[in-house]
């Protein structure tokens, strides 16, 4: 019982990191990034090759994956998104656009790396701390702690730096932010880059916590989207709470019904929240 809870919470921390980038993009720019999972898998491949070719630890690979994904994010944002600006249904358009992007990434990854299941295997991954008869896997603990540190850093950045204020201002009111002198294009580009860098970090962790293959990103994105709808689209706190809640729930479902059915928890929770509170736990009515 407590054991399942611990495992759920540890996994929830990692989910929270994965979801934070996604919810940031929606909050700041109303972009639903269906390619988020695909970008995570790209970063996972980078981490995988750094580990197998150069022996770089997945945590050290954050130094590579985060800036790389930031740059990719900046390029992708600048080339694709400004054209959609001012479209009647901007959010829907971004869904289709990132859907296309996800297909392209999946196809290229599949072509280059084939569909083989991969995973890095650092020494701590199979190790665990034992406290009494409780069992705390080291890999998941480290991953969870790293995730929370990154989320905390993101929160501090948003609330204590000038760029962070500008990003927060965009979240609240895009037009008003522009009037008071926020450079919307620049700030949006940085936000998109940060969102992608978070996906990069998540990818590094994913590379050893889970096995991955090119087509897998659909499962990830569906899971993450369920999390942020539950938490309230665009809310960082909501993403963290939603992640922890659902990860714990999924851990119990997995224990009772077998791991096959644990993804179902996320989808059913999504439909349940749409029935009860369509704007999510932390969402404002307008955002939906």
């Amino acid at each position, binding site marked *: 019982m407590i054991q399942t809870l611990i495992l759920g919470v540890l996994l929830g921390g990692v989910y929270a990191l994965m979801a934070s980038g996604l919810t940031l993009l*929606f909050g700041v720019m*109303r972009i*639903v990034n*269906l390619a988020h999972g695909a970008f995570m898998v790209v970063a996972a491949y980078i981490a995988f090759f750094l580990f197998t070719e150069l022996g770089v630890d997945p945590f050290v690979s954050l130094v590579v994956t985060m800036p790389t994904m930031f740059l990719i994010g900046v390029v992708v944002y600048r080339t*694709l998104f400004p*054209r*959609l*600006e*001012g*479209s*009647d*249904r*901007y*959010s*829907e*358009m971004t*869904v*289709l*656009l990132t*859907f*296309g*992007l*996800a*297909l*392209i*990434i*999946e*196809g*290229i990854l*599949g*072509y280059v790396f084939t569909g083989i299941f991969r995973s890095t295997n650092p020494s701590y991954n199979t190790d665990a701390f034992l406290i009494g008869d409780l069992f705390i896997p080291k890999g998941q603990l480290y991953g969870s702690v790293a995730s929370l540190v990154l989320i905390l850093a993101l929160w501090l950045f948003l609330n204590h730096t000038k760029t962070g204020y500008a990003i927060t201002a965009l979240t609240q009111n*895009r*037009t008003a932010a*522009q009037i008071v002198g926020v450079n919307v294009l620049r700030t949006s580009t940085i936000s998109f880059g940060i969102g992608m860098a978070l996906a990069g970090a998540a990818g590094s962790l994913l590379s050893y916590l889970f096995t991955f293959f090119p087509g897998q990103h*659909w*499962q990830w*994105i*569906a899971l993450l*989207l*369920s999390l942020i*709808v539950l938490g309230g*689209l665009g809310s960082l706190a909501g993403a963290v709470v939603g992640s922890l809640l659902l990860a714990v729930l999924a851990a119990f479902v997995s224990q009772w019904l077998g791991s*096959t*059915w644990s*993804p*179902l928890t*996320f*989808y*059913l929770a*999504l*439909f349940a929240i*749409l*029935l009860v509170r*369509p*704007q999510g736990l932390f969402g404002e009515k307008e955002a*939906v």
Partner: protein
Amino acid sequence: MVEVAREPETSIEPPRPKSRRSRVVAGVVLLLLLVLLPLSRPVVGPTFHYLMQMATIALMWVTLATSWNLIGGYAGYISLGNNVFFGVGGYLAAALLVYQGWSPFLTAPLAGLVGLVLGLIVGLITLRTRGPAFIIATVALLLMAALVFDNWELVGGANGLSLPLPGYPREWARVPFYAGMALTALGSTWLSWKVAHSKLGLGLRALAQDETKAEVLGIDTRRYKIVAYALSAVFPAVAGAIWGYSLTYVRPSVFFTISIAAQMVLMAIIGGRGTVAGPVVGAILLVTVNEVSVARFGSSELNIVVTGIILIIVLLFFPLGIVGSLRQRRKLPAFLDWD
């Protein structure tokens, strides 16, 4: 959001005078073509089976894209999981054949009915939200269906069900499937035309432009959306019943994949979302392109990449699609003007 004045993406301008006769002629020619195609056997010889198969596939995609257009085009609510109904129809007919011995051609209408009811239920839940949350719910719906059918032992899990062979005479073996799919495609196109010319269609186009304003005008937007969604589920289910039978097996990977969802959306958008003829044109075009590209490159991975690239290019540069762009420039030939 920055408000920028721009051309509305789907226009509700009053129907302008157009030559009625050329449309009637076009309709008759199309119907004749559909009827005459199976009779071409003595002329085309050994490629007849291939011809029938390709026509069946094209008609199936016409059905899927046209149905998607009801919710994704007219109402502007993008659904990325409408192939769930396609799969449910396929599985229902397959299970009834395997366990009861009923022909899928007889149970196909039943599949359509089940699709309608299921669409209504799913719509009631997912359409409580506007915009992005709806799309997310449809993705979740698709992955949930894939998970359930992958693990449901009664219908064979990931291996699916093998269906008994129909035992038609060899030389005409593909014709019944062709005929069934042709009827389904005609049905879905007729439904699309009917909706476009009804109060429902007008309401849907209004809410696609501005839902709040549509509501203020007294349109019961929620009911309109749910009806459109339920209708968009009917013919895909019928098509699924026939398609599964023609393959002689049903399997989750035949129906519940993201790439099928992507193709449906892409066809409707390339042809022109929110128009009657658009999805038909888009479906036929993309089936042809796919057939050529698979024959040439033979790789499904690269095919996915091409699908993605086309989707992005169309979205950024031709958001109105072929039919929509031509109409905007007043260059749409009368035989394609079905609205």
